[in-house]
C-alpha cells in the first residue's frame, strides 16, 4: 500500500515551505471534510491553512479542475496524482494554464478508493499509471512493480455486445440522467463558457432531463472530450445517479489513440489530436 501518512506529512511540509518562501500564492490540495471518508478540494493560501491539509485513499479529486480559477501569472502549487498530472499537461497544451506558473507536487498512489462504494478504483481510472507523468516535487516514493492494468481492459465486455444490446444499455443509463451537470463541473477539461448545452441560439438540445436531450448532451460531450479526456474518472464519481460515463470516454480515448497515435496529456509538446492533423492520416479511419 501507498504510505498515505508519509505523503500527508510531506504535503504539509512542502506546502508550508512554498508558502513561507512566497514561491506560490496558493496550494491546491485536499482538505479535511466532515469525516475522514469525505476530504474536500482545498486551497491553502496562508501558512495557517496548512494544518488542514490531508491525504488519504479517498482523495481522488482531480485538482487540475481548479487551476483555471486563477489568472495567468498566479503562482500555484498543485497536488497531482497520475491522472491529474496528465490533466495539467493537457491544460498546458491547450494554453489554459502556463507551465511556469505551476509547482507540481506529484503523488504516486495506488489503492485509491471510491467514497461511495469503497471499491478500489485503480482499474477504472488512472490510465494504467501510478506515478505522475510530470512533477517538480515528488511527495512519496515512486511505485514500481505494481501490476499495470491496461486502461482499456474494462471495455472488452461492452465492445463484445451486439449494437442493439449496447443501445439498450446506453439508453437505460442516459435515461437516468437528471442533468445536474456534475460531470461537466467535475471535469478538468470542461471549461467552455458558455457550454454548448447552455446556449440558446442555437439551442442544441432540450433542457428537460428527458431521453433525447440527455443523449444529445452526453454524445456531444464525449465528442468534445475526444482526444482530450485524460481518464481520471471524475465524471462517473461525481455522477449522483452512477452513469458509467468513464466507459464511453475510455472507448473514445482508445479509438483516438489507435487512429492518431497519441494519448491525451502525455507530452507537453503535443497538440490535442483533434486540433491537429497529419497529411498521411489514412481514409481508413472513416470506415
Amino acid at each position: 500500500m501507498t504510505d498515505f501518512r508519509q505523503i500527508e506529512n510531506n504535503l504539509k511540509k512542502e506546502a508550508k515551505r512554498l508558502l513561507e518562501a512566497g514561491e506560490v500564492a496558493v496550494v491546491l490540495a485536499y482538505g479535511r471534510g466532515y469525516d475522514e471518508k469525505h476530504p474536500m478540494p482545498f486551497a491553502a493560501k496562508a501558512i495557517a491553512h496548512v494544518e488542514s491539509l490531508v491525504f488519504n485513499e479517498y482523495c481522488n479529486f482531480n485538482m487540475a479542475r481548479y487551476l483555471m480559477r486563477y489568472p495567468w501569472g498566479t503562482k500555484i502549487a498543485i497536488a497531482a496524482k497520475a491522472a491529474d498530472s496528465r490533466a495539467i499537461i493537457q491544460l498546458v497544451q491547450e494554453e489554459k494554464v502556463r507551465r511556469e506558473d505551476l509547482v507540481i507536487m506529484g503523488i504516486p498512489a495506488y489503492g485509491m478508493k471510491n467514497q461511495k462504494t469503497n471499491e478500489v478504483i485503480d482499474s477504472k481510472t488512472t490510465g494504467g499509471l501510478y506515478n505522475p507523468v510530470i512533477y517538480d516535487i515528488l511527495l512519496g516514493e515512486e511505485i514500481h512493480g505494481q501490476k499495470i492494468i491496461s486502461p482499456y481492459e474494462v471495455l472488452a465486455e461492452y465492445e463484445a455486445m451486439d449494437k442493439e444490446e449496447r443501445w439498450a444499455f446506453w439508453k437505460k443509463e442516459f435515461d437516468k440522467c437528471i442533468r445536474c451537470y456534475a460531470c461537466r463541473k467535475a471535469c478538468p477539461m470542461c471549461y467552455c463558457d458558455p457550454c454548448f448545452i447552455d446556449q440558446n441560439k442555437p439551442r442544441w438540445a432540450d433542457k428537460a432531463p428527458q431521453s433525447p436531450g440527455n443523449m444529445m448532451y452526453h454524445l456531444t460531450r464525449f465528442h468534445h472530450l475526444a482526444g482530450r479526456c485524460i481518464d481520471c474518472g471524475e465524471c462517473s464519481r461525481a455522477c449522483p445517479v452512477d452513469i458509467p460515463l468513464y466507459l464511453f470516454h475510455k472507448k473514445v480515448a482508445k479509438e483516438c489513440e489507435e487512429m492518431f497515435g497519441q494519448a491525451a496529456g502525455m507530452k507537453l509538446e503535443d497538440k490535442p489530436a483533434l486540433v491537429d492533423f497529419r497529411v498521411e492520416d489514412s481514409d481508413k479511419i472513416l470506415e
Partner: protein
Amino acid sequence: MSFEPKILGIACNWCTYTGADLAGTTRLHYPQNLRVVRVMCSSRINPSFIFRAFQLGADGVLVGGCHPGDCHYNTGNLYARRRLAVTKKILEFAGLEPGRFRVEWISASEGNKFAEVVQEFTAQIKELGPQQKLKIEQLQEKA
C-alpha cells in the same frame, strides 16, 4: 407503401456541391431522398449537426468534402477527417448502425461519383429501415 428514407447531405461548397451541380447538368439520375445542405467547408460541420439530424428524424447522414489535399482552404478537410472519424466511432459505440453515417470525398468534376454514392447510400439506408433510435419520441408518434 415502400419506405422512403430521409437523408441529410452536407456538402462542401467547392467540391461536393459543385459535383452535385455537375451531376444535375449532365442529367444523371439519382434518388430524391437526399436533402443537401451547403456548407463552405467540411470542417464547418459541427458534430452536433449530425447528432441533431438523427434526432430530428434523418435516416442517414452523408457528408461530402474535397479530396484530402484539395481543400479550398488547404487544410480544412484534414481536420474534418479526424473529427468525423471520431463522430463515427461515437455513433457506433452508442449503438447506432454504422452504415447510417458516411463520409465521401467527391471533387467538383466527379458528378458521376456523386450520383453513384447517393444511389448506393440510399439503397443501403432502405435496407437498414427507418432510424428509430435517436429520433425524438414525439416525432415518432406523428410519423
